[in-house]
């Protein structure tokens, strides 16, 4: 119970001014560190999903979910279990690539389903949408060629289509 672990929370919110700071502020106020955070629109214009990854104990994650649930603009909070969900993140990465290494890098990119989105005289800009662990692996492989710049979006997650509607989503609302 006391050992920390990673937890991905999917927080459905009403698209109201200040909602992101309410959510993120709650984490810092209660002493949780956010590993990654991604916000974006949903199928409904008036709602957004904030995907948050935290590293904390199970007890803590239950606490933070209950506190999140108390925010008026938060509609529901789900913990997304990795084995029942698809998790993706976008990486943009610029790598030094002179003529001698260019092909090598491009082949490697192919293996990771990364695309070359721009090329300069001695660098390549790659884009990759993948599971965050795969992105980390790609970055590691590219490191020897010198990474000029890299940026990631933070993960988003969704329960697999093959999982019956509620299984992969554990709403942690505890009603006693």
């Amino acid at each position, binding site marked *: 119970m006391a050992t920390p672990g990673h937890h991905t929370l999917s927080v459905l919110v009403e698209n109201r*001014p200040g909602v992101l700071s309410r959510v993120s502020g709650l984490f810092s106020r209660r002493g949780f560190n956010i590993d990654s955070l991604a916000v974006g629109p949903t199928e409904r214009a008036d709602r957004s999903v904030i995907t948050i990854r935290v590293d904390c104990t199970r007890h803590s994650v239950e606490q933070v979910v209950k506190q999140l649930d108390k925010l008026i603009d938060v509609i529901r909070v789900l913990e997304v279990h990795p084995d029942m969900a698809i998790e993706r993140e976008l990486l943009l990465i610029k790598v030094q690539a002179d003529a001698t290494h260019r092909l090598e890098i491009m082949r490697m990119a192919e293996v990771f389903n990364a695309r070359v989105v721009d090329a300069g005289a001695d660098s390549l800009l790659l884009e990759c949408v993948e599971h965050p662990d795969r992105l980390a692996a790609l970055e590691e492989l590219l490191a020897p060629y010198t990474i000029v710049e890299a940026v990631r979006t933070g993960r988003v997650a969704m329960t697999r289509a093959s999982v019956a509607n509620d299984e992969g989503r554990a709403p942690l609302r505890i009603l006693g």
Partner: protein
Amino acid sequence: MSDTNLQKARARKERMLGAEAIIRSLEAEDVTICWGIPGGAILPLYDAFMAIDHSIEHVLVRHEQGAGHMAQGYARATGKVGVCIATSGPGATNLVTPIADAFLDSTPLVAITGQVPTHLIGTDAFQEADITGIVMPIVKHSFLVQKAEDIPKAIHEAFHIASTGRPGPVLVDIPKDLQLTEIDFAYVDTIDLVGYSPEFPRELEGIEAAADLIAHSRKPVLYVGGGVINGEASDDLILLAEAMQVPVTTTLLAKGAFPDSHPLSVQMPGMHGSKYANWTIHRSDLLITVGARFDDRVTGKLDAFAPGAKIIHFDIDPAEVSKNRFADVSLVGELRATLPALRDAVIARKDNAARLEAQGEWLRDVQSWKRDNPFRYKKGDKLKPQYVVEAFDKALKGKDAIWVTGVGQHQMWAAQFLSIDGPRRWLTSGGLGTMGFGVPAAIGAQQGCPDAYVVNFDGDGCFQMTMQELATARCYDVPAIHAVMNNGWLGMVRQWQELFHGERYSETNLFGTIPDFVKLAEAYGVLALRAETEAEVDAVVAEAIAARRPTVIDFRIDEEEKVYPMVPSGAASHEMIDQAWDNEWVEEGV
């Protein structure tokens, strides 16, 4: 809200300024009184207060903190939502302390602030402060109104959120230009908050599990917090306790939720609680927690709190369950629903008579601790504060009295020596521990309950933080009595310095004669009295109670007096220290 006010609001289909719409919305919420100070960004609202006919009394205070605490005092004494109003920038920031106080003590409060005009927001305009940002971690919710048409809706939702579920403060920030915009008033009485559902499904499935734990317990205790008062569940609690025949301990916030004079009461637990409450908890094998939150001032060292007890937790707020202490069984919902359900379940059990029999010995133990270890104090040459508290308690016995306090030693003496038998009759700043709460909270409580006798036990330090509100008391003729326990020190801090910091009294001496509280009170035109001996105490208490006008009494008390017993910070809650007595207390083997 009352039907007539609601119907009036619905029927109103006029064109009006946003400012007037604020007033009409407040009327629809049954607001009859509010507290505040005008200023640039809220001027249109104040203009409307004067320009139109309406049914709201506005009380002009001397500092916005006073407005906030008055609204809190009113709310806690009456159970209604308290309303305070301030201008943008410094007016709004002066409300931060009462808002935080209302947040920690779950008080329904709506704060309305003016904001700079919409087109100036974000430009560091004159008196611009991002007040919704500033209060974000200390409100239940806040609104920055964006369109004048949204004013009625925002106010309606603010009242709904402040007063339902676990109550708390809500801030509504309204830019000046919106107050000056003409709108078609349309009162929306539906609530459109998908993310907020305070009416929990009444899941009573935990009841049987709770009744099971109770049936198997040999040493149960009801640990009661302020939720019982907010949940209006005192009567249900009394019925439950009497049916179960278990001791009841009431936290600082819950004083009065269960009668202090009840034979089952073991009064207050925690740092300056009774020995018998702390021993009862420590020895208990089952804590039936009702609307309480395992605050560190109650638990002391958390690991050592009620070490042998299982926990049943009743609360309206699911986030309190297992926050500080794991709950074996929890029931989230309104106490007025869950407490009677538990009572029925306990009584219905076939083995209930056997349980009562088996728990009888425990109850006898608890009662003997209570009999042998009352709160007490030693008389000396100088006036003892506890005597003052007892004198008021005696003088107002049988009358409707509301007791208010500041924060410090005097607060604890009042908590220990007052006997209070009903809810909403003890108003103290518990969670935030706000010095300066007393004077304004007493004024607000008195305005909400004009016939009650309101007594504010204040410290000389606390009093000086909000004493400017004596002007408010005088102007509105609010007869609350402010009993200043003048020990010349920031006494509670001094007590810690004496006991734990080698008597180094760093920056705690207030020099008790500065100011002269009697002259000060006279300057405000209120009744000013002083007492230094017990005989004088008896006389001034009688005079003040008879006067029915705003009163300040300067009680010159023994500066050496300390609050005992005490759980030192970080100790386990049953490890209480005490002063030496001639007839030493028998420390039960706990």
